[in-house]
């Protein structure tokens, strides 16, 4: 068996603050196009303020409330520090396993791009690196 590696990039238009954009279907379509049946996929979003969150869709608002409480909007020296801190904690990169059915996640789980900034029609670039057999 030969290991194959694919890298692809795409854009998502976002608005915010603290809005959650679903990526799972997009990533699983990229996986399907490769024809690979098992492996690893690394997802990365460019920039110092967005977040990537792998979480049960049912409880996203619970996470959202927790994060806002942990890192409030005000009280910093750097104007938008809350965006950076939320981004660093969620991380801008995650690696997941996949098989022929898609991502190895429970059905109710999503891969969210989190727009932390109060923006409108903002362009976010994502990289997806897929390797497997």
């Amino acid at each position: 068996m030969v290991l194959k590696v694919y890298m692809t990039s795409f854009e998502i238009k976002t608005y915010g603050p603290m809005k959650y954009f679903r990526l799972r279907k997009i990533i699983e379509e990229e996986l399907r196009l490769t024809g690979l049946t098992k492996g690893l996929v690394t997802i990365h979003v460019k920039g110092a303020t967005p977040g990537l969150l792998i979480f049960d869709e049912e409880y996203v608002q619970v996470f959202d409330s927790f994060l806002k409480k942990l890192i409030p909007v005000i009280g910093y020296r750097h104007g938008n520090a809350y965006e950076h801190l939320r981004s660093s904690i969620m991380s801008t990169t995650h690696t997941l396993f996949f098989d022929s059915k898609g991502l190895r996640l429970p059905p109710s789980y999503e891969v969210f791009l989190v727009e932390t900034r109060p923006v409108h029609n903002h362009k976010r670039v994502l990289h997806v690196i897929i390797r497997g057999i």
Partner: protein
Amino acid sequence: MIDVLIDKLIIDSNGYAAIDITDTITDWLRKNKAKRGFVTINAPEKGCIVTLIEYESNLLSDLEEFLARHGEQKKIVLEGLFGKSVVLPVIDGTIDAGVFKRIVFIDISEEEGPKEVLVGFEGVHD
């Protein structure tokens, strides 16, 4: 041909520091002629974190206050919050992470001395 390169870098730390290691990693990629793939950076030692954040003095002060506020009882919690590894894409020999995002090594161990940072590149190189 896909290859894997793994190396150990040493960071001098006073035991309480936030150090921008982006250029160190970029130089390492250049030295190894990495072209396309991804690089993983890991801080294996206790009390050390690798995270992605803008490296700006006011923001670092905010980060320091955040770490102090939430780590006052159990510092180990901070390693769980921020993580010990990051993975970044390498395209045409450079890290494609955006303008402001930097790779920052954070040491909250309060133990002065050299600290290990592990670097792994998976991909294509010259």
